[in-house]
């Protein structure tokens, strides 16, 4: 029932596919309230990550997460690069050297990722950023800890979807969208959407694996 390095690799590869599929959608979300590059940024990073993984994946979940972190930091660019990079880096540190993660470790990793995003970006829930998807996802994951990894991630994905949708009416207070003031209301935040997509993919990957 645990999650090994191969499972993390599979989840990240699936995430890369998801990002590629939703590249245009993410960029389009970034058009009215940002600079129309979020899909390109994410796709550049995940394409590079797949190339790294093809070159030979590390042997622990933590090391795989760390590889993801450094690749995303150096390839995504924009605001999303350091934020997602930090999230994966903190998650990697949180899970340490373990060769398998149980559901509690997955929750810990998610929470560490959220803490990293908040530490770097200083956004709070309600600022209309990826935090609005990630924060409720962590709470939902926590509540589902005892139901196993697949359930933890499914709960996180559901909460992230709702959290992403919650950004629509909000006035953005962080990132480029904040330049718009009131005009940022009425738009789904692209980073919140990509967070929800990633978690949904991880959940699906966990569901298949188990």
């Amino acid at each position, binding site marked *: 029932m645990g999650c090994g390095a191969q499972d993390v690799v599979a989840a990240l590869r699936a995430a890369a596919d998801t990002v590629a599929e939703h590249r245009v959608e993410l*960029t389009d979300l970034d*058009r*009215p*309230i*940002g*600079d*129309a*590059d979020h899909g*390109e*940024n994410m796709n*550049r990073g995940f394409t590079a990550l797949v190339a790294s993984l093809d070159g030979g994946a590390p042997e622990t979940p933590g090391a795989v997460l760390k590889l993801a972190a450094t690749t995303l*930091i*150096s*390839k*995504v*660019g*924009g*605001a*999303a*690069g*350091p*934020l997602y990079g930090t999230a994966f880096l903190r998650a990697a540190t949180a899970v340490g050297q373990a060769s398998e993660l149980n559901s509690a470790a997955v929750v810990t990793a998610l929470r560490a990722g959220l803490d990293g995003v908040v530490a*770097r*970006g200083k956004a709070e829930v309600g600022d209309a950023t990826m935090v609005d998807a990630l924060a409720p996802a962590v709470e939902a994951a926590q509540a589902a800890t005892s139901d196993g990894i697949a359930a933890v991630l499914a709960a996180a994905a559901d909460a992230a979807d709702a959290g992403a949708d919650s950004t629509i009416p909000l006035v953005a*207070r*962080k*990132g*480029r969208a*904040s*330049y*718009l*003031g009131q*005009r940022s209301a009425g738009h789904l935040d692209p980073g919140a959407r990509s967070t929800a997509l990633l978690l949904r993919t991880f959940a699906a990957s966990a569901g298949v694996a188990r």
Partner: protein
Amino acid sequence: MKKIINDPATVVADSLAGLAAAHADLVRVEYDPDIVVRADSPARGVSVISGGGSGHEPLHVGFVGPGMLHGAVPGPVFTSPTPDAVQAAISATTGDAGALLLVKNYTGDVLNFETAAELASADGLDVRNVVIDDDVAVADSTFTAGRRGVGGTVLLEKIVGAAAERGDDLDAVEAVARSVVERVRSIGVALTAPTVPHVGEPSFDLGPNEIEFGIGIHGEPGRERLGAEPAQALVERMLAALTDDMPLERGDEVVLFTNSMGGTPLLEVYLAHGIAERLLAERGVRVVRRLVGPYITSLEMQGISLTVMRTDDRLTELWDAPVNTPALRWGV
């Protein structure tokens, strides 16, 4: 989308190849990660480095050379460079005197440059950041990402580069940079949208009679949409936005920078500049130096920005100091 490019994926590197060929006497280009450094680097004193997404040329790569930047870090179009690229520029140019990173206030740039500075500091180098946030279009508050760095960046790079060239130490160079940031304000307006190569469509939609007031340099939306208006009214509105934020008094000395956003005919840029000069003169403000032209652009976006810096003899002297870069050259 029609563009003179081969492939959106290689547009920045392909363009840097042209820069390298055209200005081999001034700059050297390294690829992957892409950086532009002075042909005569490393710096003997403090290294001054800037960077950010590409598409704002000549900023920053055209400002590398004696008297201005030691290194520039061009990211993908409109996207911050990653920390490893910034680190490469730091290692290529920085010695014991340390480096100052001039960072435009965008979440992406700030986060990526901060990360790079942290990594470089871990290597024992004295690397600091100064963030420029001169765009008065954005209300500066804890409720936003803060003001963007725009036209003031050009003045900042020139003046800070001159301080480093003079031999100021890192504390002094940093102090000059902070003083410029405090004294400089900008406001921009767009008539059309830019088209990012890898996106292929205009970044926003403007009606045939609409302008975006308070535009950023990535086509981020501005303060408000307005109907097109005569240049006189537009420039008055722009100057009002600047002086509401930074009042100017009779006798104040300023540097006035009228910038083209890229696609606006120079005829119109000078026209706007003339209006701004006249309005400032009417208020008794003394324009002691000026810069007019496309220096910080947003690809083919049509529009202009106005930048005003309150100056004094000390800053004006640094402005006047020789500079020899692809895009800005005097005194040499």
